[in-house]
């Protein structure tokens, strides 16, 4: 871990906009030094608003407080917070070259010319954009712009790196590649980072902990593993992957769910339940089956069996007890989570 990494604490932060929209309900959040946190949730749930409050671009409502390393930053302006920020639209300065963009924060900090030059070379090399140093911004591709934006944000050695959907504007294959590059970069730098996305696979790949948000609230905080396998409620379970309702476990107090990949296809009549195949999606490494088991909701099954499944076939299925996701039905409203 980076020895200068900063911990973040938010207490009671809420946001009501001038027009009366309550974008965030009062919430608490602690980010450990050097940790990568991903804010995940559907569009409009308040991710950007929360990030902007942490950055200092929005003020929290009366009563909220923000700490960096136990130091109260609530009323400190953004330019004094020593953060690095990456915007969805990149926000590169069009009147400056790539190199000028990257060193802008260093010039503001009045570093010596040699130090600036050294840091510039280091950044160009780290992001593999040496050849672009003297280009104008409008001469760059989307992926190159994103690298420059990252380089500019980390060049100042920020206490905290904030990224708002940095990959959304890129096409799928580039997104995958940059995602793993960013993941490596964050590991290597050990800077405390907060990353906003509505893409669950991005969240899984990058996060030490995921903060799932819905309608201005934090619904669950946990490691990607916990969020996926021990979701707190049906909203979380659905948001981070697909889930099925168990067709023949009924309990007034519990909702029993399972994930498509946790289904075993067994010999006819030997399983817990049977269903008819409605459609088969062959994906090469696996097949995704959609099944009708007499309920309103279809069941989805992912299987790696080398078997030529056909529409209309009836199959018998089993789910190991420990793979079942059991949710207290009382938890299925929007929940506020107390931080442990």
């Amino acid at each position, binding site marked *: 871990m980076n020895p200068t990494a900063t911990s973040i604490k938010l207490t009671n932060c809420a946001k009501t906009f001038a027009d009366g929209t309550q974008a965030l309900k009062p919430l608490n959040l602690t980010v450990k030094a050097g940790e990568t946190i991903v804010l995940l949730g559907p569009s409009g749930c308040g991710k950007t608003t929360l990030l902007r409050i942490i950055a200092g671009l929005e003020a929290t409502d009366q009563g909220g407080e923000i700490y960096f390393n136990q130091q109260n930053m609530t009323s400190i302006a953004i*330019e004094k917070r020593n953060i690095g920020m990456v915007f969805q639209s990149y*926000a590169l300065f069009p009147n400056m*070259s790539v190199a*000028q963009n990257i060193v*802008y*924060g260093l010039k*503001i*900090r009045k570093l010596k010319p040699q130090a600036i030059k050294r840091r510039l070379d280091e950044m160009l090399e780290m992001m593999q954009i040496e050849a672009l140093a003297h280009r104008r911004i409008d001469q760059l591709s989307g992926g190159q712009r994103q690298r420059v934006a990252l380089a*500019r*944000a980390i060049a100042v050695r920020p206490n905290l790196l904030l990224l708002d959907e940095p990959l959304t504007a890129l096409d799928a294959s580039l997104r995958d590649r940059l995602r793993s590059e960013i993941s490596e970069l964050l590991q290597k730098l050990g800077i405390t980072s907060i990353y906003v996305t509505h893409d669950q696979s991005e969240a899984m790949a990058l996060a030490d902990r995921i903060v799932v948000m819905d309608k201005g609230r934090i619904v669950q905080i946990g490691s990607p593993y916990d969020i996926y396998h021990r979701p707190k409620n049906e909203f979380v379970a659905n948001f981070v992957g697909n889930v099925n309702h168990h067709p023949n476990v009924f309990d007034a107090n519990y909702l029993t769910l399972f994930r498509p990949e946790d289904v075993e296809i067994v010999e006819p009549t030997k399983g817990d339940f049977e269903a008819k195949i409605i459609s088969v999606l062959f994906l090469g490494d696996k097949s995704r089956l959609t099944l009708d088991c007499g309920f309103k909701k279809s069941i989805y099954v992912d299987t790696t069996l080398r078997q030529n499944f056909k529409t209309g076939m009836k199959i018998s299925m089993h789910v190991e007890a420990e793979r079942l996701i059991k949710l207290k039905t009382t938890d299925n409203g929007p929940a506020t989570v107390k931080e442990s």
Partner: protein
Amino acid sequence: MSPHYPRLFLLILPAAIVFTAFFIIPMSRLIFIGGTGENGWAAYYAIFTNSRYLYSMIATLILSFSVTIISVIISTIVGLFLVRNQFYGRDILISMLTFPLAFPGVVIGFLVILSAGRQGLIGYISKALTGDKWVFAYSIAGLFMGYVYFSIPRVILTVMAAGEKLEPSLEEAAKSLGASPWQVVKDIIIPALKPGLIASSAICFATSMGAFGTAFTLATNIDVLPMTIYTEFTLNANIAGAASLSIVLGLVTWLALYIARSLSGTSVAPAG
């Protein structure tokens, strides 16, 4: 020959006709007339040899230059404020600010007399405050005031159009990198407004160089070049002198704008 040439020729033709009819022919005639006076082509040197001409040229240049600078500064601040802030009565304020666009120079001159003339508001207030009655409507200061008043709306409109296109995330990015509000203005906002500011300064400068109506209304003490041309033409019947001065006025204005444009090249300087 490329098959596109005939079509290209047809497209250029209207422009060529207009250019010839309204520029080349009258201009060459004017240049020619400038050389028909008793001193012949030396009339074109008169701007340097005749101290009244020279003085009038320098006064006009200084006036136009300062009008441009002051108008651009005021309009940039006001224009950005209007783009950034929503308040009650904003739309009415904007349309009032752009009101003088339609006024002829005479009306501007009249307004200057109303505020800084012998019976003017400024004189009245200054008398009450300091005991001195300030009257500057009939001097170059009055002309300055009139031109600034007249130029501001043009520049404000350009600044507002460019300001609305400013991307807020650019300013936020600069702030996140530690830039103070002043550094944001200097490094982000001004460069983004630059093309618009250059274009509107050019118009503002050229208009002030050639404006006549206001100077004519305020009259007496003012000796700007368009007034000198008018005097030569009507009172002294020195048609050649008037023509040569007109050509020189046009050339100097063009040269000033050319220098301004090349000094403010829009390309990115390489880092290093």
